[in-house]
C-alpha cells in the first residue's frame, strides 16, 4: 500500500509535475469553452422548455430564500456591530447606515449570496446531473429523440442566471433590515432616518454595476454545475466529485469575475 503510493508520487516526478497540470488545465478550459458555446447556440434552438425552466426557477430561487435570507440578516447585523467601534473612534457613528449600505450593496451582498448559492445550488446541479449521467437517464432522453442539452442544461443555466439577481436583491434588503436592528441595539434611530440615510448614500454607480454582475455570478454557478455534472465519467464516484468540483470551481470563478467587474466599474464610473 505504502510502496504503491510512493511509486505513484515518483512517477509524477518522472513526468515533471508541471506539464501534466498545465495540460489538464488547458484541456479543461477548452472543453468548458466548447460547453459554453454549445449553451449559447442551444439557447436559441427550439424546443424551448418553458415549463422546465419555470420549475428550475422555482427550485433555484424559491427554495434558496430561507438560507439566503438568514445569512443576509446575519451579514447585515454582524457588519454593523463590527464597524461601529471603528467609526465611533473617528466620531463618525452617524455614517454607520451609509457605510454598511454601500459595502453590502456593492460587494458583500452579491459575493456572499453567490458563494452560498454556489454551495447550495451549484453542488445540487452537479450531483443531480452526474447521477443522471451515471444512471443513463441522459442517454435515455437522447435515444427517445429528446434533446437532453436543451431540457437539462439550458433550463438550469438560464434559471440560475435569472434567479441569482433576485436572490441578491432579497438578501440585500434583509441585510439592511439586520443592520437597522444592530444600529438600534445601542441607540435610537428611526426607521425613516435609517433608510433615508441608506438611500442618500447609494448612487447609481453603486447599484447598477453590482446588479449586473450578479447575472454573471448566476451564469457561472449554473454553467459550472452543469458542465461538471453533464460530463462526469467516473461512475458513482463521479457524482460526489462533480458536486465537489462544481462548488470549488464556481466559487473561484465568482471571485475572478468579481475582480474583473470591479476593474471595469472602476474604469467606467
Amino acid at each position, binding site marked *: 500500500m505504502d510502496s504503491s503510493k510512493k511509486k505513484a508520487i515518483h512517477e509524477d516526478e518522472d513526468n515533471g509535475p508541471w506539464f501534466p497540470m498545465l495540460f489538464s488545465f488547458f484541456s479543461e478550459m477548452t472543453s468548458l469553452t466548447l460547453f459554453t458555446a454549445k449553451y449559447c447556440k442551444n439557447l436559441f434552438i427550439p424546443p424551448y422548455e418553458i415549463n422546465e425552466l419555470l420549475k428550475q426557477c422555482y427550485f433555484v430561487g424559491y427554495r434558496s430564500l430561507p438560507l439566503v435570507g438568514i445569512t443576509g440578516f446575519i451579514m447585515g447585523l454582524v457588519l454593523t456591530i463590527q464597524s461601529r467601534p471603528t467609526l465611533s473612534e473617528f466620531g463618525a457613528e452617524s455614517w454607520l447606515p451609509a457605510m454598511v449600505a454601500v459595502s453590502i450593496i456593492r460587494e458583500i451582498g452579491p459575493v456572499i449570496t453567490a458563494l452560498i448559492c454556489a454551495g447550495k445550488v451549484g453542488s445540487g446541479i452537479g450531483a443531480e446531473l452526474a447521477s443522471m449521467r451515471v444512471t443513463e437517464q441522459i*442517454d*435515455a432522453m437522447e435515444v427517445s*429523440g429528446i434533446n437532453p442539452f436543451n431540457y437539462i442544461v439550458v433550463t438550469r443555466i438560464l434559471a440560475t442566471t435569472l434567479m441569482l439577481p433576485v436572490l441578491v436583491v432579497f438578501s440585500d434588503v434583509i441585510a439592511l433590515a439586520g443592520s437597522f436592528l444592530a444600529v438600534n441595539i445601542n441607540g435610537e434611530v428611526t426607521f425613516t432616518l435609517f433608510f433615508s440615510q441608506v438611500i442618500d448614500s447609494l448612487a447609481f454607480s453603486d447599484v447598477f454595476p453590482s446588479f449586473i454582475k450578479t447575472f454573471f455570478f448566476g451564469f457561472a454557478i449554473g454553467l459550472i454545475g452543469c458542465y461538471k455534472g453533464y460530463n462526469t465519467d467516473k461512475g458513482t464516484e463521479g457524482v460526489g466529485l462533480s458536486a465537489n468540483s462544481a462548488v470549488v470551481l464556481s466559487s473561484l470563478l465568482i471571485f475572478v469575475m468579481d475582480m474583473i467587474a470591479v476593474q471595469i466599474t472602476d474604469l467606467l464610473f
Partner: protein
Amino acid sequence: MNDSNSDKKKTNETDETSAKEFAIEIVDLHKSFKSNRVLKGLNLVLAKGENLVVLGKSGTGKSVLIKCVVGLIEPEEGSLTVLGENVLELKDKKLNDLRKKVGFLFQSAALYDSMTVRENLKFPLRTDPSIEEDEKEALVKEALENVGLLDAIDKMPSELSGGMRKRVGLARTLILKPAVMLYDEPTNGLDPITSREISKLITDVREKYKTSSIIITHDIACAKITADRIVVLKDGVCLTEGTFEELQNSEIPEVRAYFE
C-alpha cells in the same frame, strides 16, 4: 447477352429485397476507447421479426455495440444500417426520427427519478404535438397494462422494485411503438422467477408490437426463452452463432461454459 442482363437484374433485385429483410446490419464495426480496443471488426445482422440474443462476458463490449446502433457512441470504422438508414450519416432531426423507431431498454432501466411513472411514460411523447393529452393518457395506460403494472402509475421510481423498474422502462420504450427493440441485460440482477417473467414479456412484446429485437444477456435461461438465434461475442468479434440447441451441443469451450 440479353439473358445475362436479365440475370444481373434478377440478382440485383434479390439483393435489394434481402437488404430490406434486415432490421439491422452491422459490417466490420471498430470501436476503441483510447488504448482499449473494444470492438474489432464485428459483423452482425438482425432479420425483421427476429429475436437475436447476444451472449458475452462482462466487458466484451455488448453495451457499446448497441449504443453504437442508436448513435450514442460513434464507432471509428464500419457501417451500420438500421431500418434501411445509415446511422453514421444521420444528423439531428433525422437521427431523432430514427431513434424514435428504435426502443432501448437500459441495463439500469434509466427511469427519470424526479418524475412519477406516468410522467416517465409521457416524456417520450412530449415532442409530438399531434397527440392530445387524453390520447397520451390512454397510451400510457395501454403501455403499462402490457407490462402488467397499471397500479404503479402514480408511484415514484424509488418506490419500485428492480423487476418493476425494468418493466416500467420497457413500457416507456414501447409507448413510441418501436420497430426494433434493444434490450441491455434485461434480467440482470433479478431473481430467477422475475427473470422468467421479464423474458416472457420480451416474447410477448414481439407478438404484440411485431418488433425485431437484440437481447443482450449472459443469462442462459433468458436466452432459452427469448432466442431465435444466438450470437456469442468474444474479444470484440463474433465467436459463433446458432440456435439454442446448436450452441448447446457446441464443442467450443467458451460456448460450453455458458451451459454448465
